[in-house]
Every structure is written in structure tokens, then in C-alpha cells.
């Protein structure tokens, strides 16, 4: 195991019916690093992210996060772990359309039992950190694509997660908006020391990471970047 690894995956295998999505993946993610996971469509990179984040349980192999074996937890315990220690950002922000920006951001805190007033204050602060002060009362349909993604990032970071899992977080944006959203996200996580697993097929996005791994045919291929 790499010293200072916050996530350690060993021998991960996962099939969906006859399709082998992961065919023996070993991966260490270091504490505080931004790791880009690249690879062609269907290579298994999203399945890998789901296994690392405890969304999916692998058929074989283990995932340890901060020393804890995630693969040994039941669904309820994995759900609590995801809520408390992980943040998620997807290609399409997946904001709830009937909630304002602030209420979307406050949601994970409310689900975790934080009192409403404190959750709201934290949500406003998280939005301000992403340059969205003044947009608290807007609904998702009243936001630009880039703004909506920044709200989604605020929601993912409001719980101060240990690990942020981002699956093509700028995939739906044009180059300039993507640049702004990505820079805003990475400035914050680097400031907080949050570890990031960033799935992208876009080399310019991956170039913002400290290191990248390539997933091909369910295995980890080439890798380059920062050495611990």
C-alpha cells in the first residue's frame, strides 16, 4: 500500500451479466491528491468510481477508505459513509428543480440531521465560496449551465467531505465555462486538502490533476504524474 493512501483498492472485479466491467484493478489514491481517471467509453471507469465510493459492491476485491473496509459494510452503513465522508458531482448537476440553489446545497446537511438554520448558513457560505453569493434564492432553471454546476459543487463540498468523486463534472459545458467551473472546484479542494477522484475523457481536464490513470478493458493501464 502506498504510504498516505486514503483509498486503497485491491483486486477489484465486477461484472454486469456477461460483461466484465472491472477485471482486477489495484489502485491507491493519496490523501489530498487530485487523481484523474481516464479511458475510452465502456472501459470501466464509472464502475471503478462507483466501487471506490461504495455505491456498488465489487464481486471480488476490497476497497479501504481511511483504513475502513467499505466492501464489508452493509448498504445502510455505506449510505451513511457516503453522506458523511464523500461528495459527488456528476456531468449534469442533478439539482432538484423544485428547490432553490441554497436549499439544494443545504440538502446533504439536512439529511445528516444538521439543524435547518445551521444548514442554511453553511449553504450560503458554500455558495459564496463558489462566487454565487446573490444566487441563493434562484431555482435551477434560472441558472446558466456553469452556475448550476457550481451549485452542484457547493452541494458536494458543503459537508466538508474527505473525498470528492466527480464524474465528467464539466462534460456538459463549453470550453470557457468548463474552465471556470473546474478551476473553482479545484481551488477549493486544494485549499481544503480534499482528495478528488475525477473521471474525465478530456485531456485538458485531466491536465489539472496531479496524476492520471488510464482504465482500459477493466484494468488500469498507463499512469503518469506526481510521485508521492
Amino acid at each position, binding site marked *: 500500500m502506498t504510504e498516505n493512501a486514503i483509498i486503497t483498492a485491491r483486486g477489484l472485479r465486477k461484472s454486469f451479466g456477461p460483461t466484465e466491467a472491472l477485471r482486477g484493478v489495484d489502485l491507491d489514491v493519496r490523501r489530498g491528491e487530485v487523481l484523474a481517471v481516464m479511458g475510452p467509453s465502456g472501459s470501466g471507469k464509472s464502475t471503478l468510481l462507483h466501487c471506490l465510493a461504495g455505491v456498488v459492491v465489487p464481486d471480488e476485491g476490497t476497497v479501504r477508505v481511511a483504513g475502513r473496509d467499505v466492501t464489508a459494510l452493509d448498504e445502510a452503513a455505506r449510505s451513511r459513509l457516503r453522506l458523511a465522508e464523500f461528495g459527488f458531482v456528476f456531468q449534469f448537476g442533478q439539482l432538484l428543480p423544485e428547490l432553490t440553489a441554497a436549499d439544494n446545497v443545504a440538502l446533504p446537511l439536512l439529511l445528516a440531521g444538521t439543524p435547518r438554520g445551521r444548514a442554511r448558513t453553511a449553504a450560503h457560505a458554500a455558495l459564496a465560496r463558489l462566487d454565487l453569493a446573490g444566487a441563493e434564492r434562484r431555482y435551477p432553471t434560472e441558472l446558466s449551465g456553469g452556475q448550476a454546476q457550481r451549485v452542484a459543487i457547493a452541494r458536494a463540498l458543503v459537508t466538508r467531505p474527505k473525498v470528492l468523486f466527480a464524474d465528467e463534472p464539466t462534460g456538459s459545458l463549453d470550453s470557457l465555462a468548463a474552465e471556470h467551473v473546474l478551476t473553482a472546484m479545484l481551488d477549493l479542494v486544494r485549499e481544503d486538502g480534499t482528495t478528488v477522484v475525477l473521471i474525465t475523457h478530456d*485531456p485538458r481536464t485531466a491536465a489539472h490533476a496531479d496524476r492520471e490513470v488510464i482504465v482500459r478493458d477493466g484494468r488500469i493501464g498507463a499512469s*503518469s*504524474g506526481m510521485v508521492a
Partner: protein
Amino acid sequence: MDNGKTLLGLLSQGPSHGYDLKHTFDRFFGGEKPLAFGQVYAVLARMLRDGLIAYVGEEATGEAPDRKKYMVTPIGREMLLGWMFTAEPPSPASRSDLMAKTVIALLVDEDAQRLLDVQRSAHLARMRDLTKARRDAALLDVLAYDHALFHIEADLRWIDLAAARLDALRQEIAQR
């Protein structure tokens, strides 16, 4: 990059001498590799010979060793506009090398996937360096970094497509 045409363009802003032109060039395009004075004077002499620029007199500036001032002629201006509005062919040098390596690797039954992986890693590492340097750069430099980044990205797309086609390529090469 065509340094001659670029200098002609800089001189189109108004009469100037070699010393100033060199510094203006470096300010906009020098990056890590400033232009040599010798190159500037050689280009000026050639453009003067070809009638693209004309000598307009001398100026005492104190710091400039060569104080001959030049201006762009109408022929020079026409040449500049012709260059400016003619599309550049994409640079084929690095790609054709990689293509040759890939084909040869397939011909001699070497690991073509590996050589593409090696090249991909090197390209991504270079992109990471450029992205880091770009982070706090002025907008003019950001523009130059973006240009470099998009070109490397184009090569990476080619590498990914070539990697995805290796099996089919191997079969086609075997049949030739």
C-alpha cells in the same frame, strides 16, 4: 512560427528599429526563447533587399546599438496581409513519426499499444506542466498556453483512435 512575417507585422505598427522590434517580439512571443539580435538584423536586411521595408533615417536613442529606422512599404503590407489571411497547414512532423513507429511496431510484432501509452503519458505530463504554468499567467500567455494545449490534445485524440484501431490495423498491415 514565421519570425520574418511576425517582425513585418510588428513593424507595421509604425517606424521602428531592430532593437525595439526584438524587445516587442520577445514581449509578445518570446516565451522561454527570446529572439536573437542577429536574427532580427538578418531578417531586416532581407526585407529591405526584397522591398518589403524601407529605410527612413537614424535615431539617437542612447541604448540601441543599431539606430537605423525602418517602415513597412505597400508591398510589405500586401505580403503581410497575404500571410495573415492564408490558412496554415497542420504541422505533420510529430504525428508522422508516431505513425511510422506504430506501423513498424505492428510490422515487427512489437507492443504498439505500449508505445502509444508511452507517448500518451508524455503528452499528458506536458499538458499538466502547461496547465500549471498557465494557472497564474497573464491572459496573453494563457492564449499561447491554450494554443499549445489544444495541439497536444489533437495528437492525443489521434493516439486514442489509433489505440482503438490497433487490432484492425494489424490485420490490414498483414494483408499488404
